[in-house]
C-alpha cells in the first residue's frame, strides 16, 4: 500500500533524522516568512553589492583599451618624449600623443574659468569613440576655420562662461573657436578626477597658447596601439622592453589591464564597505532568524518530547530540526542569491546614463558563493542555540507541563559550534576584505554594538522587574509587559537598535565630513591656489595680487613634479606600501624645496637642515613614510624633469593635510634642485573670508593678466568634492536602509510571534472589565518606553561608532548633529509604537467568547 503524502510501506531508507526533518517541513509553511525574508534580504544585499561592484571593475578592465586610449600608455610630466623614446614606441605600434594640463579659459567679455585642457593629435582616439555635438570628425573639429583653430568644450564649461557653438575662447595666448560640445571622450576615466570641465584642442595648436613652459605642469601621454595581428603576449613583451629601457626615465607606464588603478582600488574599497553594511543587515536579520526558530521550536515542544519518549536521542532531535532549518535557510539564501544576481543587471540598466563606460553584468559565481556562505554562517550561528535548547526538551513534558521550569544549561558542544560559526564569519569578512584595518574596525564596532544592545535589553528587563509597581493599572500593565517572560524588550532593543545605530553612525559620519569640508573654508583655508606661476614672474605676480586684494595673504613656494623611482634602491614597483600610502607611488607628485620647516608641519623625528646645506636631503611625511616602510637615513630616488635625484631622508614631519594649505609629502633641501627650472605654487588667503563676487573678479583679472597661470578657486573645488561625497553617501545610506528594513522585519516578526499571548491577555483583561482605550494606552506606553530606550542607546552607540571612525580612521574632527540624533529617536519611537499598536489592534478585535471557547 502507499501512504498519501508519506513514504510507501517498503519505505525509503533515509536516516531517521532526515526523514523526520522532511516530514516536519510539511507543516513549516507558516511562521517562516520573517526567517526567509531576513536571510534573503541580507544575502541579496551582499550578493548584489558584490556582483555590481565586480561588474563595474570588470567593465573597467574589459574597456581598459578605450579607457587608457590604447593597449599601453606611457606618461611623462613636464617633458616630451625624446626622439629615441618616441622611436621605441612607433616601432611597436600606432602611437597617439596627448597633452593634458590645467588652464584658464577666458571669454572676450573677460569671464574666466578653470578648464582641464586636453590637446590631442589627429589619430586620437586610438580606441573607443569621441562623441561631439554636433557630430563631426576630429579633423573637422580642429581644422582652421574663420582664421581660428577649433575646440570642443564640455557643456559645463560652456554654461559657466556663457559660451555657444561658434563663440571664441582664449586659452593662454591663443584664441579658439568653439565648434562642438564635448559629449564624451573614451579615455576620460584614466585622467582621474579633474578640477574643471574639459576643453579639447589639437596638440598642433598647443604651442600657440604659450602654456608649455619649462616646469609647467603638462602631462604628455603616448598611447600605443599594438597591431591587430600582434599575439597576446606582445603587450607583456612591450612592457618588459619598456621597463628595461626606460625604468629611470620617469615614465608612468600603464597597460589596458590596469588603466585606472586608483579608481579600481576605490571601487573595491567602497564595495567592501557597502558589503560590510549589508553584512550588518544580515546580522540584524539573524536576530529575526533566531526568534523565528525559537518560536517554531517552542511550538514543537510536544513533538520533540514525543520523539524523545519514543527513543530519539538529543543528537537525533538536533539533527532533525537542524536539517529542517537548513532546508528553509537554503530556500532563503537561494531567493537572496537570485535577487542579488539580478541587481547588477537592473543597476546597469538603470544607471547606464551615469556609468561612463559599457558594463556587462554576469552571474558571478565567486561573489554569489561568498554571499551564500555568509548566509549559511549567519543562519547557522543564529539557529544553533535555539536548536540546542530544543534538544534539551524533557520527554516528561508529555506528562506534566514544565513550561515554567528553569531553562536547562546548554551543553558545551553547541556553544562551541556557535563560537566557531562566529569566528568563521569574522574570518570570512576579514579574508575577503580589501582594507583589513577598516574591516577590523567595522567588525569590532558591530560586535561591540551587538553586545551592548544585548546587555541593555537584558538590563532593561531586569530594571523593569525591580521597579516599584505603579498603582494605576495602565502604567502597571505596561511595566509588567516590559519584563514578563517572552517580553519583546530584548528583541526590539537588539534588532531596531542595531539598524538605528548604523543609521545614526552613517548620518553623523556624513555630517562630520560635510562639516570638515565647510569648516576650514570659513577659518583658515585659502581662497585660491595659483599654479604654474613662472618663477621669473613671482615678484611681479605678488605685486599684482597685492594691489587687487589688499590685506590678503599670498604664500608662495617653488614647485616641481617628480616621480618616485626607487626607495633604498628598491624599484618602486617592488615596494609593498600600505593602502594609505600606495597613492604616493602611483604617479608623479608635486615636490618642493625649502630652507625652513613649512607652515602647518611639525618635525617629529630627525633634524631640519641648516641654511647652507649642500647634500641632497629630503623631509618626508611621517605617516606616508611609515606606510612605505621608510625611516630617517633611508634614501629616496626621484625622477624630476628626466633627471634622477637620490636624496637621504633627514627628518619626518607631521602634516596637517586637512587644513587645505600648501602641503607636500616630500620637501627637499634647496641644494638638491639647484638651478632646476621650476614654477611657483601660491595660495591667497583673505583673513576673515572673502565675498564670492570679489573672488570671481580677482580670478578674471589674474586670468587676463597671467594667462599661463592656473587659478583654482577652493570654494568651487570643495563644492565639487561635496557633490561627490553626497553621491557616495547616497549609496551608503541605501545599504544602511536595508539594515533598517531588516530591523523592522525582525520587529514585526517578534510582534507576530507574541500575537497569541496578546490576544489571550487582551481577552482576559476585557472579560475583567478593561476598556479598549485603557488597553491601547497600556500597550502604547509599553512600546513607547522600549522605543525610547532603544533610541537613546542607538544614538549613543551610533555616535560613539561615528566618533571612532571619524577621529581614528578618517582622522578628521567629529561633529555631533542633534538633528540626526533627534530624527533617529523620533523615528524609533514612531516605528515601535506604530508597529506595536498595529499588532495589538488585531488582538483587541478578537471576540472574547470565541477566544475563551478555543483556549
Amino acid at each position, binding site marked *: *500500500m*502507499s*501512504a*498519501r*503524502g*508519506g*513514504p*510507501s*510501506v*517498503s*519505505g525509503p*531508507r533515509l536516516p*531517521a533524522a532526515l*526523514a*523526520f526533518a522532511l*516530514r*516536519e*517541513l*510539511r*507543516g513549516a509553511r507558516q511562521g517562516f516568512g520573517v526567517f526567509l525574508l531576513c536571510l534573503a534580504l541580507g544575502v541579496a544585499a551582499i550578493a548584489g553589492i558584490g556582483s555590481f561592484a565586480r561588474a563595474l571593475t570588470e567593465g573597467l578592465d574589459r574597456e581598459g583599451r578605450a579607457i587608457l586610449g590604447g593597449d599601453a600608455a606611457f606618461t611623462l610630466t613636464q617633458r616630451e618624449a625624446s626622439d629615441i623614446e618616441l622611436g621605441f614606441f612607433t616601432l611597436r605600434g600606432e602611437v597617439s600623443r596627448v597633452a593634458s594640463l590645467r588652464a584658464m579659459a577666458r571669454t572676450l567679455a573677460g569671464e574666466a574659468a578653470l578648464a582641464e585642457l586636453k590637446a590631442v593629435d589627429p589619430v586620437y582616439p586610438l580606441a573607443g569613440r569621441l562623441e561631439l555635438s554636433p557630430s563631426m570628425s576630429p579633423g573637422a573639429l580642429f581644422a582652421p576655420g574663420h582664421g581660428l583653430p577649433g575646440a570642443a568644450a564640455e557643456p559645463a564649461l560652456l554654461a559657466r562662461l556663457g559660451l555657444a557653438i561658434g563663440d571664441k575662447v582664449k586659452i593662454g595666448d591663443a584664441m579658439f573657436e568653439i565648434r562642438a560640445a564635448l559629449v564624451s571622450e573614451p579615455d576620460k576615466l584614466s585622467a582621474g578626477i579633474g578640477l574643471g570641465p574639459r576643453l579639447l584642442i589639437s596638440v598642433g595648436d598647443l604651442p600657440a597658447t604659450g602654456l608649455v613652459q619649462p616646469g609647467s605642469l603638462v602631462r604628455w601621454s603616448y598611447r600605443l596601439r599594438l597591431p591587430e595581428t600582434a599575439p597576446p603576449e606582445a603587450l607583456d613583451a612591450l612592457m618588459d622592453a619598456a621597463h628595461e629601457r626606460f625604468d629611470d626615465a620617469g615614465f608612468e607606464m600603464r597597460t589596458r589591464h590596469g588603466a585606472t588603478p586608483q579608481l579600481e582600488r576605490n571601487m573595491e574599497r567602497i564595495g567592501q564597505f557597502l558589503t560590510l553594511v549589508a553584512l550588518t543587515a544580515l546580522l540584524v536579520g539573524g536576530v529575526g532568524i533566531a526568534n523565528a526558530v525559537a518560536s517554531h521550536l517552542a511550538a514543537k515542544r*510536544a*513533538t520533540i*518530547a*514525543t*520523539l*524523545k*519518549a*519514543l*527513543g*530519539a*536521542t*538529543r*543528537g*537525533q532531535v538536533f539533527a532533525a530540526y537542524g536539517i529542517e532549518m537548513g532546508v528553509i535557510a537554503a530556500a532563503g539564501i537561494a531567493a537572496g542569491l537570485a535577487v542579488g544576481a539580478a541587481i547588477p543587471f537592473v543597476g546597469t540598466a538603470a544607471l547606464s546614463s551615469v556609468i561612463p563606460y559599457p558594463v556587462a553584468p554576469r552571474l558571478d559565481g565567486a561573489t554569489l558563493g561568498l554571499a551564500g556562505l555568509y548566509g549559511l554562517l549567519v543562519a547557522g550561528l543564529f539557529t544553533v542555540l535555539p536548536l540546542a535548547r530544543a534538544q534539551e526538551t*524533557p*520527554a*516528561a513534558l*508529555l*506528562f*506534566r507541563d514544565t513550561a515554567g521550569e528553569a531553562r536547562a544549561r546548554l551543553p558545551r558542544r553547541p556553544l562551541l559550534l556557535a563560537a566557531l560559526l562566529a569566528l568563521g564569519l569574522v574570518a570570512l569578512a576579514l579574508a575577503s576584505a580589501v582594507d583589513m584595518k577598516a574591516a577590523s574596525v567595522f567588525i569590532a564596532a558591530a560586535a561591540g554594538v551587538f553586545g551592548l544592545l544585548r546587555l541593555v535589553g537584558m538590563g532593561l528587563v531586569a530594571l523593569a522587574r525591580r521597579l516599584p509597581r505603579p498603582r494605576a493599572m495602565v502604567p502597571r500593565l505596561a511595566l509588567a509587559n516590559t519584563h514578563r517572560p517572552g517580553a519583546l524588550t530584548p528583541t526590539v532593543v537588539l534588532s531596531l537598535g542595531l539598524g538605528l545605530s548604523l543609521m545614526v553612525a552613517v548620518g553623523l559620519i556624513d555630517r562630520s565630513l560635510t562639516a570638515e569640508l565647510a569648516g576650514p573654508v570659513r577659518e583658515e583655508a585659502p581662497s585660491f591656489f595659483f599654479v604654474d606661476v613662472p618663477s621669473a614672474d613671482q615678484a611681479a605676480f605678488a605685486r599684482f595680487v597685492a594691489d587687487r586684494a589688499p590685506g590678503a595673504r599670498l604664500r608662495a613656494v617653488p614647485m616641481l613634479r617628480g616621480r618616485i623611482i626607487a626607495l633604498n634602491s628598491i624599484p618602486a614597483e617592488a615596494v609593498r606600501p600600505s593602502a594609505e600610502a600606495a597613492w604616493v607611488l602611483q604617479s608623479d607628485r608635486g615636490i618642493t624645496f625649502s630652507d625652513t620647516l613649512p607652515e602647518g608641519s611639525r618635525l617629529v623625528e630627525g633634524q631640519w637642515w641648516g641654511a647652507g646645506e649642500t647634500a641632497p636631503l629630503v623631509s618626508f611625511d611621517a605617516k606616508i613614510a611609515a606606510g612605505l616602510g621608510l625611516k630617517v637615513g633611508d634614501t629616496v630616488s626621484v625622477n624630476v624633469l628626466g633627471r634622477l635625484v637620490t636624496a637621504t631622508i633627514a627628518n619626518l614631519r607631521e602634516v596637517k593635510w586637512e587644513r587645505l594649505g600648501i602641503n607636500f609629502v616630500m620637501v627637499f633641501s634647496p641644494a638638491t634642485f639647484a638651478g632646476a627650472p621650476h614654477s611657483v605654487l601660491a595660495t591667497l588667503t583673505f583673513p576673515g573670508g572673502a565675498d564670492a563676487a570679489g573672488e570671481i573678479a580677482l580670478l578674471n583679472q589674474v586670468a587676463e593678466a597671467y594667462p599661463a597661470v592656473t587659478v583654482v578657486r577652493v570654494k568651487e573645488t570643495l563644492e565639487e568634492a561635496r557633490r561627490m561625497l553626497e553621491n557616495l553617501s547616497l549609496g551608503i545610506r541605501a545599504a544602511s536602509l536595508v539594515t533598517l528594513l531588516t530591523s523592522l522585519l525582525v520587529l514585526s516578526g517578534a510582534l507576530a510571534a507574541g500575537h497569541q499571548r496578546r490576544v489571550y491577555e487582551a481577552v482576559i483583561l476585557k472579560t475583567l472589565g478593561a476598556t479598549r482605550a485603557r488597553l491601547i494606552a497600556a500597550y502604547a506606553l509599553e512600546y513607547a518606553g522600549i522605543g525610547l530606550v532603544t533610541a537613546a542607546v542607538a544614538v549613543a552607540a551610533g555616535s560613539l561608532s561615528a566618533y571612532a571612525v571619524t577621529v581614528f580612521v578618517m582622522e578628521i574632527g567629529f561633529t555631533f548633529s542633534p538633528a540626526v540624533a533627534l530624527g533617529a529617536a523620533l523615528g524609533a519611537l514612531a516605528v515601535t509604537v506604530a508597529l506595536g499598536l498595529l499588532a495589538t489592534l488585531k488582538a483587541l478585535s478578537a471576540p472574547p467568547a470565541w477566544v475563551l471557547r478555543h483556549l
Partner: protein
Amino acid sequence: MDDIATPSFILSLSHIDLYLGSGPARVHVLKDVSVAVAPGEAVGLVGASGSGKSTLLMVMAGLERADAGTVEVAGTRLTGLDEDKLARFRGRHVGIVFQSFHLIPTMTALENVAVPLELAGRADAFARAARELAEVGLGARAAHYPSQLSGGEQQRVALARALAPEPAILLADEPTGNLDEATGRQIMDLLFAAQRARGTTLVIVTHDPGLAARCDRIVRLRSGAVVAAGAEVT
C-alpha cells in the same frame, strides 16, 4: 550495556524517593516506593489526583530520575544511564501510550507508527508499521494525518506505535481519559488483547475502576506512598 537476562521481575523499583520543585515549593512526590512487576503481568496504578501515579510511571520509563532508590527495567539498571542512553533503551524495550495520544501532527498515521522503528534503525520500519496499523484496524487510514482522525482512531495509532518495536514493557497513562466510554472500551480491548497475545508486561495508570479490574494486580498510591500492592478488588 543493556544486555537482558531473564529476571524474575522485569520491572523493579526499590525504595524510590522523588522530590519536585525547589525551595519552599519543593514537594516530596514519591515516598519510599517499592514495586516489582513480573514478566507478562498487567498492573493497574490507581490513586487520587496528585497521588504520584504518573510520576511513578515516568520513573519506570526513565523519563524522571529518582532522588533515591534503584530502578531496574528489563535487566538494566536505569540509575546510571545518561539521557541519550535512556532514550535508546526506551526505544527498544518500553512502549508508552499517553492520555493525549501525542501523535506527531506533521506525520501520517503510518509514519507515526514507524517513528520508534526508524529511530531504532529497523530496515523494515514501514512494512512493520503497516502491519501494526492493520492489527488495530486502521490499515485503510495509514495515509491520514492525526487531524484527519477521530480521538479513538488517534489512540489506536498511538497503541500501534507503542507496540510496533515489540517492547518488553508497555506503560499507559490513563489511555481512555480523553475518550468516550464506548471508544475507551474498544481501545482497552485492543490493549489487553495485544498484551496477552505478545506476553508484554503492562503498567497502566487509571482512574477507571472497571479498567483497573481487568489488570492482574493493582498498586494503590496515596500521597506518594504505596498503600496496597497486591491483587485487589475495588
